[in-house]
């Protein structure tokens, strides 16, 4: 019976102190009765292997003990959908606010080193606290909901007549993943805010080379910079609204406005030939040639982007016209 005592000891390790002796005594009585029965059927005492078989059949000690415990969960099935919904709704805003505030800090605060590593660590830290506090808050709601079900009721008086009206199904132009769309936009805005101060975010390692030869962005870039930032911030607002509204009649016109704005900036940039300039006057012909070549390459690149952007704009305008005709034809057919 040494095996049985060892088994009971193992189960007892996982049982709460209250009622432990009672549970183990009952378990012992039941297991002994089962072993007695088996021994009677065999007509002889059980071997150690047979006792082990009975115990194995009864279950692994920690799992057996767990079944005697009251059901434990931090957030139960009734509260969990609200917890998950809140997390999903709040997460993009938490990420967006963290990213943008970090960018503002980088732009207006004192210069920092290792900004990418520290930014990622900051984001992880914010997310850790966000999940922690949300879980604690909902665990508290669960706690009160279980103990005072009359006081903490969930939508017990909801009225189907107050539900939103059916929205027309015009979802084809909506982003498939609006949360990811918002997060990417926030990261892009942060990058946009940060790169004037940290040029290597735009040029990569080339930034150090340009800096070493005293080459900098021409004033033309600064002229459009804040307009582009403002447009991105506006997009962020619209994308935040998109999380809550399935139908966005302003989305298509907004996209066209964005494209026209982008194209206008490109056209104005194409009229300028100097995109990078030396900080101090230079007389060395080889350095002048280098800047000239670099400006020519940037100009050609911008020309290519302008052609693609024009085709895309015309295509999108065409799609809107076709869409309007189809809708009108549909209305006529219905009449």
């Amino acid at each position, binding site marked *: 019976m040494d095996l049985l005592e060892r088994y009971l000891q193992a189960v007892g390790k996982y049982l709460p102190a209250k009622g432990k002796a009672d549970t183990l005594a*009952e378990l012992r*009585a039941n297991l002994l009765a*089962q072993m007695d029965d088996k021994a009677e059927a065999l007509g002889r005492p059980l071997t150690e292997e047979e006792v082990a078989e009975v115990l194995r059949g009864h*279950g692994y000690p920690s799992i*057996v003990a767990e079944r*005697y415990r009251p059901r434990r969960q931090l957030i139960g099935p009734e509260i969990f959908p609200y917890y998950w919904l809140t997390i999903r709704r709040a997460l993009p805003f938490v990420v967006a606010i963290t990213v943008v505030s970090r960018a503002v800090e980088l732009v207006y605060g004192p210069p920092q080193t290792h900004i990418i590593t520290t930014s990622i660590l900051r984001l992880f830290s914010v997310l850790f606290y966000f999940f922690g506090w949300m879980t604690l808050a909902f665990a508290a709601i669960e706690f009160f909901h279980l103990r005072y079900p009359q006081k903490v009721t969930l939508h017990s008086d909801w009225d189907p007549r107050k539900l939103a009206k059916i929205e027309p199904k015009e979802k084809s132009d909506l982003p498939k993943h609006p949360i990811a769309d918002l997060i990417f936009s926030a990261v892009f805005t942060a990058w946009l805010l940060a790169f004037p101060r940290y040029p290597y975010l735009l040029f990569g390692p080339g930034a150090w080379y340009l800096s070493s030869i005293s080459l900098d962005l021409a004033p033309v870039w600064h002229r459009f910079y804040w307009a582009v930032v403002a447009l991105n911030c506006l997009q962020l607002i619209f994308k935040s609204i998109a999380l809550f509204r399935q139908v966005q009649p302003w989305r298509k016109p907004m996209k066209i406005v964005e494209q026209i704005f982008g194209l206008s900036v490109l056209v104005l940039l194409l009229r300028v030939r100097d995109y990078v300039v030396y900080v101090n006057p230079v007389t060395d012909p080889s350095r002048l040639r280098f800047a000239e070549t670099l400006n020519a390459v940037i100009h050609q690149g911008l020309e290519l982007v302008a052609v693609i952007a024009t085709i895309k704009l015309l295509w999108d305008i065409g799609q809107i016209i076709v869409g309007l005709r189809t809708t009108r034809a549909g209305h006529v057919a219905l009449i």
Partner: protein
Amino acid sequence: MTSTIQNELFDSLRLELRRGCLIVAVLAQLRVEHYGYTLRKALADEGLAIEESTLYPLLRRLETQGLLTSEWREEEKRNKRFYKLSAEGASILTQLLVEWNGINDSLHRILKEEKER
């Protein structure tokens, strides 16, 4: 669907189906006093095998809920905990049986309609 996935799905659905029925069966069987092991044997003899690691904690839970009463008593020179249906348990069992019969009748009617189609 592969046969392994189908078997797993069947096992999970079977478990769900049995869970509620087992409670009714345990309450019904405990109209006569039993201790854990003999209760398990009695249920198995009636064709309702149940794992001991499921049954014994279930007895504790039903007792906590006031549906069973228990007492320690010596039998065959061993102390055993005997369980019996309480008055409250008997009342709940009656209601559960009405519910179960209702479900059973509905299911039979649905299956009969299916056959006649």
